[in-house]
């Protein structure tokens, strides 16, 4: 859509309903997520796809649509660091799921990006509630009848924005996903060592391949464990262009992965990370990013005995970059609740700005994407909230993604309108 507006008049007329425009959001508390901090009574000017200006004394371009945000709060669109948006509709309906293979083959070459459906109902429900960017991640696919041996390397994730049906993939690949810990063991033959040996073998193969590609193509190398596309897919990881995103909970599992990442010179992100606070210094030293659900405090299994509500605040105090996810179980229907997680993290000791970063700039930095600040030339993903965005009584009033205001109507709001009154003359199906 955005590309179309740049091309010509014909495209403009077709696209007019959804066109970018000039908008000035005035008078709100603006969380810039930059050194400028939070600005009271600030103005955010959006021009086409980008932010034109942010500040108190900002010239409002003539003809701009004014949104009065007095008493409201303005933030960047939130970024969800771990989702199945666009590759999931209903968790228990397998035909609606595209996040994983059943483990028939090594998964490094498996990519979610091309299967993403930007028209997904989940995306529409999610973005109207202020989440405008997401990491879409692969996962293992559990099937009761399949004995998995090769499920631990799940494949490549992508970063998307939720604002349009074309040109929505921002970075692909964005990360290589590896399932470690109890689940990784289960899908690798029954022990953590199984997952590790497959990963190491594949990395060794990929390193050998990168140095001896033509010899390999001529059949002049030893037999590799993985296929050509997997070998190719592992190259950006080995070059440090994308992180290894590891699902791991136990402190010792995290330490193992830090060692492995060091051995191979990999960038590391730990996902889940319930016991991460026990090894916070190790993670800080390694420069690893950590994606957690900060309210997961239950000793849910042998690998998460030390789960704690202080996970987020201890990690932050050690200097670890954190991001918050609601989804560590391949169900992305409630991504907007990442801000409730951030609020709860504040209730348990995390500084407010850090909590807000964990759902904006934090995910962006972990995946190496320039996003999450309200500043000139940034993509205009902007949300106007009717109050404190971390508060459970707050909802989004306006959501912009790359300068386009997102419709607030959805299946859920239509159902509400239909059934708000049960005084039917004709049945509900006639009310639309």
């Amino acid at each position, binding site marked *: 859509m955005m590309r179309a507006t740049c091309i010509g008049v014909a495209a403009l007329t077709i696209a007019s309903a959804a066109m970018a425009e000039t908008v000035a959001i005035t008078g709100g508390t603006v969380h810039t997520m930059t050194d400028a901090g939070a600005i009271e009574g600030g103005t955010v000017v959006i021009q086409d796809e980008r932010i034109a200006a942010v500040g108190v004394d900002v010239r409002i371009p003539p003809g701009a649509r004014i949104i009065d945000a007095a008493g409201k709060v303005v933030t960047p669109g939130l970024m969800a660091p771990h989702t199945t948006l666009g590759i999931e509709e209903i968790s228990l309906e397998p035909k609606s799921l595209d996040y994983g293979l059943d483990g028939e083959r090594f998964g490094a070459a498996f990519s979610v990006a091309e299967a993403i459906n930007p028209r997904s109902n989940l995306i529409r429900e999610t973005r109207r509630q202020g989440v405008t960017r997401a990491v879409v991640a692969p996962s293992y696919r559990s099937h009761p009848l399949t004995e998995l041996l090769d499920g631990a390397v799940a494949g490549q994730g992508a970063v998307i924005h939720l604002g349009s049906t074309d040109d929505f993939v921002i970075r692909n690949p964005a990360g290589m996903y590896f399932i470690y810990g109890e689940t990784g063991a289960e899908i690798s033959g029954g022990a953590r060592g199984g997952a590790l040996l497959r990963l190491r073998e594949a990395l060794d193969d990929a390193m050998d391949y990168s140095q001896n590609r033509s010899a390999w193509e001529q059949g002049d190398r030893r037999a590799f464990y993985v296929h050509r596309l997997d070998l190719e897919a592992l190259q950006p990881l080995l070059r440090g262009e994308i992180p290894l995103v590891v699902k791991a909970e136990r402190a010792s599992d995290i330490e193992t992965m830090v060692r492995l990442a060091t051995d191979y010179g990999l960038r590391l992100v730990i996902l889940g990370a319930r016991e991460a606070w026990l090894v916070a210094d190790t993670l800080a030293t390694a420069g690893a990013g950590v994606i957690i659900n900060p309210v997961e*405090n239950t000793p849910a299994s042998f690998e998460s005995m030390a789960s704690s509500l202080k996970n987020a605040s201890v990690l932050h105090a050690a200097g670890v970059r954190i991001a918050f996810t609601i989804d560590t179980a391949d169900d992305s229907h409630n991504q907007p609740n990442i801000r409730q997680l951030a609020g709860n993290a504040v209730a348990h000791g995390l500084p407010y700005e850090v909590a807000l970063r964990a759902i904006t700039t934090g995910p962006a930095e972990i995946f190496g994407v320039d996003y999450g600040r309200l500043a000139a030339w940034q993509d205009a993903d902007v949300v106007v909230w009717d109050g404190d965005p971390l508060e459970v009584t707050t909802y989004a009033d306006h959501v912009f993604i790359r300068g386009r205001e997102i419709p607030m109507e959805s299946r859920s709001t239509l159902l509400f309108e239909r059934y708000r009154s049960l005084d039917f003359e004709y049945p509900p199906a006639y009310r639309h």
Partner: protein
Amino acid sequence: MNQWIRRMYAGCLLAGLVVLWGCASDQDDSHVAFASTYEPLPSAPTVIRNATILTGTGERIEEGSLLMMDGRISAVGRDVTVPDDVVEIDGTGKWVTPGVIDVHSHLGNYPVFKADSTQDGNELSDPNTAEVWTEHSVWTQDPGFVMALAGGVTTLQILPGSANLFGGRSVTLKNIPRRSVQAMKFPGAPHGLKMACGENPKRVYGTLRERAPTTRMGNVAGYRAAWIAARDYLDKQEAAANGDGEAPLRDLKLETLAGVLKGEILVHNHCYRGEEMAVMLDIAKEFGYKVGTFHHAVEAYKVADLLAEQGTCAAMWADWWGFKLEAFDMVRENIALVDAAGACAMIHSDSDIGIQRLNQEVAKVMAAANRRGMNIAREHAVKWFTLNPAKSLGVDAQTGSLEPGKMADVVLWTGDPFSVYTLAEKVYIDGALVWDRNDARYQPKTDFELGLVEIEGEGQ
């Protein structure tokens, strides 16, 4: 024992409905199997002063005082006369509500620690396991009980899972971890019967086990066949009590179902879709029982008028949806819409994480509804996690609101309980301090957690 129970049931029936309830909530149930041995913890007379009090009856008292004496609410109001030697708690800037009640928990039967060997919530051997009592699965050392306590939960119902058409009997507990489940059982609380509509039974039996039910119509045939058998069992018991024929051999499955037909056991029915709830209400009419509460009830807003008409409650989430197709039609205002239609509406968790902050879940619904102009005040919304769940469990005469004479099940919050930043500071059950955020002596730790994790430098 058999003779005793039969006589008691017969007595209730002959004496009519009013006395029937008297029998069902008879405090002296020591003759009943697995009777409650619950005793309140020792408590000192305590007054909380100068707090914002939401009574659970629709009232909001600013700068109010709450007096607890002998385990009971003694007085609530702006001007409360307090005797000497009472523990004084300064509630300035803080809020007080009745204890949080969750009608849908699996703590103890699906404990927070999810080992293969702790999965005791679904008896998967048959689609009708009305004979099982989930209290026999409850692991009292589940750390989840304490986590729920830290979220202000004073009473909770543990339900069998939803794999079966009839999952078995539920149990209502006072949230104090103890050595036996009997010592946690809410005294006088009726049993519940867990039933399940929709996808779960047909998936668990039809899809995974290739036996009935494989469809929703199969589900319904299963319920009806069971009620026919229960009615027959009850008729024979009654006839025998009147000297007409032999009493049938005691049958645990039919005994539970007959308990529902007699109004002694409350039906808690897992059901998502509107038309399925309408069908379940008709089954209840056909066999002469009442559906107490629909659980999950994602589409309750579509049939809220039917629920109001039948006096059936609905227990719902704030925003869960999409994890299965029957949960597709979520609206965030569900609880508010059911409430506005005049039915008894409430939050529930079905989650060991969600149960720790049911106040926040209610806040989300209240705010969503108010954006639609529904104008719901905090003093009203508080009922969705206090008085209405007490009604659903049949314990609203004893708890669920701050009224003189009721059990002193109380939460002192650090601030507005409808804020994400607020935490339960002190929790009282029957007037006894059972949780204190600022005093480690009142932060219980289950056996399971003792010495489990070695944390260097933590002194644990």
